[in-house]
């Protein structure tokens, strides 16, 4: 067989049938489900009078629309009646079809893209889907992981397959050691700034090079998570010893002989040395400084030592004028002169234990700046929260003036009560700075956890390397 990329191999291994029109049926190993994009899909199943094809492939949890306070009250802790109905509807569907479920009261509940890996439910070589665009996160394990729409959720429930066209192959190589306190978040934001928010449309991205190999699994998840912000439905890193060590001993991971057998397969999951990519980018780690977005698209990003750019320097000048107008920023303003109202540390991009550790390390012994009205830390799962408390991180956050919350998507998309007020400006470790994303007329600046922590202390952006 001719040389293949990792993506080619995963595609071939899951290819069930070619359809007349050139699309394919691709077998799905793992289907993650949450409350927002699934109710209409389950209704569709019932209208057809069919059952889910393979319930052991499905994991459900509420995350998007849950409060991050009053968790002990369970469903009763949700004050908004429509939100409560949505979470209740998920629980009813789970009960009806006897699905694996991490309920609101379960310490394993959390953001679906945090708990999959944490539980060993995401494994190398898998196909993973979820009605959520950040499903690309799971590509960190050398899995083919894609966000899908609700009709596709229904299709996968009904057939265990996704109708898909093969994507093109893109590789992004980064070589060298990252500068001090520069993290995977800065790497992905830098990449998006380079390739653009549509640069990866129609591609699977494979991330490679020594910089990527040296990232922890959590760093790789952060990196793959934001592939969709570069337009790519899926992004991946070839599994290696770091991956295998992470998986070993996780609750749902294979055990003993099964693990060894799996490992034999996993080791082969990499692009052949002479595999051909349709598009390739190469960067050096030294190019990557701490990043901050200043606009309303993730590609509107600069290094911390830069200024808000002039719209006239871009081809779609009007888009940039609109963005700066929305953000209340003037061209030429130093990023370090932007003062903030809120800090959000959380989301499927940056809510894992390493994210909380680096933020706490910077915050230790410091207080929020006077101009910061509110600062939230929302761990990605109940287990991340527990681990952080065992390490005493919560005390550092609370002493600094942060609010220490329960797990969920929270202010990344502000479906729950955690939102920005109008024109409030937030340093956020999430993934999207779209208009209104974190609250009506709210202003989002995307940063790494370290940069968010430093900004919390200073009340404005500052190069975290100066700490």
């Amino acid at each position, binding site marked *: 067989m001719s040389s293949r990329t990792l993506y080619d191999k995963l595609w071939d291994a899951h290819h069930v049938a070619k359809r007349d*029109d050139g699309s394919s049926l691709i077998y799905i190993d793992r289907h993650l489900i949450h409350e927002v994009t699934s109710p209409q899909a389950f209704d569709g199943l019932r209208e057809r009078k069919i059952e889910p094809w393979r319930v052991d492939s499905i994991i459900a949890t509420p995350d998007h629309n849950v409060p991050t306070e009053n968790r002990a009250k369970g469903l009763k802790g949700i004050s908004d009646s429509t939100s409560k109905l949505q979470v209740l509807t998920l629980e009813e569907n789970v009960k009806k079809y006897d699905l694996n479920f991490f309920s609101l009261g379960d310490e394993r509940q959390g953001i679906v893209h945090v708990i999959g890996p944490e539980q060993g439910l995401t494994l190398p070589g898998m196909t993973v889907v979820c009605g959520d665009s950040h499903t690309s996160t799971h590509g960190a394990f050398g899995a083919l992981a894609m966000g899908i729409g609700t*009709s596709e959720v229904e*299709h996968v429930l009904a*057939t265990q397959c996704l109708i898909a066209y093969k994507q093109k192959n893109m590789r992004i190589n980064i070589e060298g050691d990252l500068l001090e306190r520069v993290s995977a978040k800065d790497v992905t934001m830098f990449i998006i700034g380079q390739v653009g928010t*549509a640069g990866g449309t129609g591609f699977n991205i494979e991330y490679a090079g020594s910089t990527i190999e040296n990232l922890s699994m959590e760093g790789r998840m952060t990196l793959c998570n934001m592939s969709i912000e570069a337009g790519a439905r899926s992004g991946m890193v070839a599994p290696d010893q770091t991956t295998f060590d992470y998986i070993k001993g996780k609750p749902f991971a294979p055990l003993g002989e099964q693990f060894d057998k799996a490992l034999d397969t996993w080791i082969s999951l990499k692009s052949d040395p002479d595999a051909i990519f349709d598009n390739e980018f190469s960067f050096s780690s030294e190019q990557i400084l701490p990043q901050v977005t200043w606009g309303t698209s993730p590609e509107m990003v600069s290094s911390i030592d830069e200024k808000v750019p002039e719209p006239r320097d871009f081809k779609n000048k009007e888009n940039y004028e609109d963005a700066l107008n929305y953000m209340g920023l003037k061209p030429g303003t130093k990023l370090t002169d932007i003062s903030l109202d809120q800090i959000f540390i959380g989301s499927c991009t940056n809510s894992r234990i390493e994210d909380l550790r680096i933020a706490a390390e910077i915050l230790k012994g410091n207080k929020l700046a006077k101009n910061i009205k509110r600062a939230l830390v929302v761990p990605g799962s109940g287990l991340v929260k527990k681990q952080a408390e065992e390490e005493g991180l919560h005390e550092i956050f609370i002493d600094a003036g942060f609010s220490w919350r329960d797990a969920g998507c929270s202010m990344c998309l502000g479906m729950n009560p955690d939102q920005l007020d109008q024109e409030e400006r937030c340093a956020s470790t999430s993934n999207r700075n*779209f208009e*209104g994303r974190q609250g009506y007329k709210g202003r989002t600046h995307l940063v790494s956890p370290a940069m968010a922590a430093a900004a919390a202390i200073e009340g404005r952006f500052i190069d975290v390397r100066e700490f």
Partner: protein
Amino acid sequence: MKQISNEFSGTFICLEKSNIDTDQIIPKQFLKSIKKTGFGDNLFDGWRYLDEGTLDQETSSRMVNKDFIFNNKLFIDSNILVSGENFGCGSSREHAVWALKDFGIKTVIAESFADIFYNNCFKNGLLALSLKKSEISKIFQNFNENSAQSIEIDLINQVLHYGDSEFKFELDDYKKKCLLEGLDEIGASLKFTDQIKSFEINYQLKNPWLFK
């Protein structure tokens, strides 16, 4: 021979902007609904109204943004939306397509589309088609806020007719068939049941750790 598809043709409205994300098409507060309908009044909610919308709210009493083209009486019956690059980027929410459809949009024309949104369109009978930058520019240039104009779509021959211009567009046969015949995708895939089952048996033998 020209064969106009009336169900995808009609008057058009322009949003001359790139990277319109699904958070703009339908903001998050409306995603709390567990239905597929009722989103039309909240399409582009943040741009269309001067206040913050809530789910199940009566929209007739809300203050509208008169400068936003979707509030221009001449265009509220439009069924074609024309926009720039990377339309529908961001969240996978199919609610964005449901909102466009609910409003009455049957065709979205853009310079390019984000993958997930593009797929979601065809699952709901919405035509999404890409034109060249120069062709889109021509439509933008001639768009006049004082009179509604029409675009005719010939889906069979994949030609868009606008004034004296004819623009060819790409569309794969399956998607075309879905739109023309209202094909039931799940029903069509279930015809592969035997193949899926035999794949699954072999696959499980090779990867037993992926099965409970």
